[in-house]
């Protein structure tokens, strides 16, 4: 188990280094002048040159990369050209909202998607299966912005049940100040027992989380269903039946533990992707997450910010992949042996 994990970890580090290299060079190839942007449109040629020297853009490219990596591990992720703030500080500002959205969306997708997939497989070709198929294919194929707007229209515009966007009502934010610990309203209010804020934050989270959950929910359902169908045909399932085990135990324990592997991988990849890939949802729901920050950075050719977000996502990818490897090894003892 240990050598297996060490191997996976080393592989992860390699992948991470490769990614920094690729993003670094791509950022340098972008045909706009970051130094000119840094100083603004009315700067003189000397000012631009000085900025170029200050940003290290006059050095050979491999030197720039070496310096960048050295700074990176020391926690200096550069300074955003747009916000003029350290990139790491910007990320700390936007990450909690993104994590909040991603994690709650994924929890929703998992707790609905896995049972739905299992039930569809156990009742293949019956009414539940057909319903679940229609539902999950819809969830995967409907455009995100369309889902978001329909949800807003129904739950805000028509039913007046849920807020249209934002993290918190302004009035509540002012009347009940939250002591910042993690940067997430939801978590901080929970820790400090600030129930008014907690309830309000939760209400604001529902629609964006449901929107985000839709695609992975459909994916998880289909994935779980197909691998469950395969496993339910295995001999050991027939044996379990031949020995008087209940269908429930067979399905949810003996079959699911064999079938869940591919789903776990999908979940991890979707989490990593959703962290900065939910610009559309953040825009529709006015959600101050990393997607916003990343999109602004791209539009402004703010390469320190772009690289910062890319590297953050890369770290999450590598870490989540490692977590997946650990989970798979726990689920299936044959992996450790291989």
């Amino acid at each position, binding site marked *: 188990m240990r050598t297996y994990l060490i191997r996976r970890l080393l592989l992860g580090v390699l992948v991470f280094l490769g990614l920094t290299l690729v993003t670094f060079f791509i950022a340098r190839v972008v045909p706009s002048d970051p130094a000119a942007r840094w100083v603004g449109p009315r700067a003189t040629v000397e000012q631009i040159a000085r900025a170029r020297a200050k940003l290290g853009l006059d050095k050979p490219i491999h030197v720039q990369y070496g310096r960048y990596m050295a700074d990176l591990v020391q926690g200096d992720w550069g300074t955003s050209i747009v916000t003029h703030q350290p990139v790491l500080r910007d990320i700390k500002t936007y990450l909690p909202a993104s994590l909040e959205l991603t994690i709650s969306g994924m929890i929703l997708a998992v707790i609905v998607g896995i049972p739905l997939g299992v039930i569809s497989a156990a009742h293949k070709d019956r009414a539940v299966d057909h319903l679940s198929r229609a539902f999950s294919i819809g969830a995967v194929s409907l455009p995100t912005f369309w889902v978001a707007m329909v949800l807003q229209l129904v739950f805000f515009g028509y039913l007046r049940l849920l807020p249209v966007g934002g993290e918190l009502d302004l009035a509540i934010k002012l009347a009940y100040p939250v002591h910042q610990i993690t940067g997430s309203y939801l978590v901080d209010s929970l820790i400090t027992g600030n129930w008014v804020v907690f309830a309000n934050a939760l209400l604001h989270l529902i629609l964006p989380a449901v929107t985000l959950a839709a695609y992975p929910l459909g994916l998880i359902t289909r994935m779980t269903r197909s691998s469950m169908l395969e496993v339910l045909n295995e*001999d050991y399932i027939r*044996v379990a*039946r*031949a*020995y*008087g085990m209940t269908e429930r135990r067979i399905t949810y324990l003996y079959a699911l*533990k064999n079938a869940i592997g591919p789903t776990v991988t999908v979940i991890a990849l979707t989490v990593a992707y959703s962290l900065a890939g939910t610009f559309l949802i953040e825009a529709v729901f006015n959600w101050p997450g990393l997607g916003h920050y990343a999109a602004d950075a791209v539009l402004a050719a703010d390469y320190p910010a772009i690289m910062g977000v890319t590297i953050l996502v890369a770290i999450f990818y590598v870490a989540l992949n490692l977590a997946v490897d650990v989970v798979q090894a726990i689920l299936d003892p044959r992996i450790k*042996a291989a």
Partner: protein
Amino acid sequence: MPEAILEIRDLKVSFRTFSGRVQAVDIQSLAVLPQEILGLVGETGSGKSVTASTVLRLLPERKAIVEGGPVLFKGQDLLAKTEAEMRKIRGREIAMIFQDPMSSLNPVFTVGEPLTRIIAIHQGVSLKEARERALAALGRVRLPNPDKILGSYPHELSGGMRQRVMIGMALSSNPDLLFADEPTTALDVTIQAQILRLIDDLRHEIKASIVFITHNLGVIAKVSDRVAVMYAGNVIEVGPTRDIFHRPAHPYTGLLLKAIPRLGETRDKLPVIEGAVPVIRRPETGCYFHPRCPRRDDACREARPVLAPIGPGHYAACGKPA
């Protein structure tokens, strides 16, 4: 004749397939006597496994059509039982061992997980007590170090050990009836012999009747008391093992005897029965076997023979028995 532990009468099983209904089993009569080993023999596709699955009611509900009956187990019709009642019978009163011990064990659980669970469910004991009984069950099938095996995963055990585990599991709740469906077919020859010896040894320790299913008559020559031969879903001959081997009445049984592989022969060198096909096609009228029968005459093409006595306890369904 002592009262049968299992008695099958007029059982018909067919499957819905894309190409219409396929008849898999059509048994006029078959009985299993207390504490005997009955060899159930027939070529692949003759309906042996389906017969066992029908008794345990393990056939896929929506695909299989079971007609006729009854299937009397200790005097009660299994076809009339509810699913909940069947769950209490499966693994407790009727157990089953399958062909491939690798695929019979769940790869992501230790061997002990299903074994202790089954004992706990069927014997109504705590998991702790079930564990003790599981250790005893593994000891009974002559597995050394049962403690270690209980905590092992299937891939850590050899084929022979896995089949011993399966046999231990089958016997753990002292069933009255045990189906062993080709229990040695997937094993290599030396292991095969060991498992056969184990079954032969165990029969004196347990009170179960054993239905030993195989496509190879040679395998059961030494262990079975009686043999029932199946062809195209029918039991076409049944009798004491010695009679079946020395005085086969049905020409098909005679052909099966010629097809017994000698030691060291591989399976693909077997003398193939002429006209053999994986899915046995039945003629519209007459004896199912007549298209392949060396002794057929015009009468065989018209009337379907039923099981008729040949000698003491020896029956055959043949118009021209030997």
